[in-house]
């Protein structure tokens, strides 16, 4: 029943066996102990499970675990380098861009993808770029500011 | 003797009165005497009644004294989000 899958997660080669119907989210959380991605809806409507697959941000609840074969996957757990936080992480903390924090891993991954494509986005571009990530606590104000500030840092 | 103001839901238990006089020194004594004098209030008290003493609302504290001449209002023990 199980399918063997070899993939790369946060730079490490990872092998796992999963049932073909299992989502990548379930594999990450239940089989690989990577519980940073959260399940808020399971239907691609909230973005809490966002990860990158081959450089593109996806909802891991809408990807099968078996599709990960040979792909490069990045999760929130791989965002910092050693003890050094990614500028987005630093700015989310500094701007208090999180309250309950459950949407934060998804926002960080979506914001990273956004800034990789568009290093100097306008407020509107940030807002539309993050429209797939629901936050119920902050009203998004501080999230947008954190992304603006992180973009500035990343542009150097 | 203290004048105790009742909110609408308690009034039927007091024959429609909006104010009743109770001889009580503390919130605990007040609740006990209200339940004795107006049995209809008992289920409300069991469910939770808060006491406003001169505008400060006590939801829980039975020991709180009812100062002479203070304005005392009973209120539902409210819930929040």
């Amino acid at each position: 029943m199980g399918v063997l899958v070899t993939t790369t997660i946060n730079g490490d080669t990872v092998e796992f066996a999963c049932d073909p119907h299992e989502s990548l989210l379930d594999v990450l959380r239940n089989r690989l102990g990577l519980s940073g991605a959260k399940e808020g809806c399971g239907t691609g409507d909230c973005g809490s499970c966002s990860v990158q697959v081959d450089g593109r941000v996806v909802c891991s609840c809408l990807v099968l675990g078996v599709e990960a074969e040979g792909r490069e996957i990045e999760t929130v757990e791989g965002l910092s380098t050693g003890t050094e936080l990614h500028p987005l992480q630093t700015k989310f903390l500094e701007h208090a861009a999180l309250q309950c924090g459950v949407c934060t891993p998804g926002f960080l991954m979506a914001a990273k993808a956004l800034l990789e494509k568009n290093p100097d986005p306008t407020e509107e571009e940030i807002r539309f770029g993050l429209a797939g990530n629901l936050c119920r606590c902050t009203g998004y104000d501080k999230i947008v500011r954190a992304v603006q500030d992180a973009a500035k840092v990343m542009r150097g | 003797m203290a004048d105790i103001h009742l909110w609408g839901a308690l009034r039927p238990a007091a024959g429609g009165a909006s104010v009743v006089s109770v001889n009580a020194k503390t919130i605990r004594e007040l609740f006990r005497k209200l339940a004795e004098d107006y049995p209809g209030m008992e289920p409300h008290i069991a469910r939770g009644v808060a006491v406003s003493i001169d505008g400060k609302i006590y939801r829980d504290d039975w020991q709180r004294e009812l100062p002479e001449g203070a304005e005392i209002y009973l209120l539902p023990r409210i819930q929040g989000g």
Partner: protein
Amino acid sequence: MQYEAPETTKAAVGLLAKAKGSAYVLAGGSDLLVRMKGGFVEPDLVVDIKRIKAMREIKKTASGFTIGAAVSCAEMNENKALIKAWPGVVEAAGLIGSKQVQSRCTVAGNLCNSSPAADSVPALVAAGAKAVIQGPKGKRKVAVEDVPVGPGKNSLKKGELIEAIELPARKGKSGDAYLRFIPRSEMDIAVVSAGVSLTLGDKGVIKDARVSLGAVAPTVLLVKAAAKAIIGTKLDEAALEKLGQAASAACKPIDDKRGTIEFRTKVAAVLAKRAAQIAYKRAGGK
């Protein structure tokens, strides 16, 4: 459930044709996985087409564009030539779900899913796109409007799958546009939508047009009367008025959680007019 990721179209067709029980094509998965999660479908076989090279490309040819069935909407939005030729189609593809969903979803999948509210379909219908279908009996091409036959139902036969979507080449002064109505700014399913594609002749007169409507009938509609209302005009007030009337007249919507008959009928006219104005401007009309 069996999962297969063949590397050729032929192999994919073979798997689907041989399949016993329920077989599904997995392109972006943004519909299929949601339905699996909700327990609405329990596939016996899933054929992932994303490892088929031919289906991963956008090709520009003399006769237009061929968009592989596994090309994501995000990739369409990165193709400059496609954006230049068919801005309305690309915009429509870019409206499906979120950025996360667009990384995965495909217009071929959107078409096969056969929702009357699918965002990319009215734009493809207005564009006169064709679906290239491969099956056990070989290849056939059909107009995209003939793929969906009802909500959630398509005209593909057992063993068949869409290999690519073809868009015709753009000639002369042409433009297209797609607009949808949603209550929020993003993330909603279209309550009503309209696609318009047109070509101008001399002096800004519309010589050719196609108008489509979404979410106002069991399938996406190609509204010939609406196109007729603007052909031969310079999209003046009177033409727009007629376009709106024709659009509303074509609507056969339902009341549901997303909208009412009344609202959809009225807003179909508004969107058709606005989309036509955008398309007209894009074609170089003034």
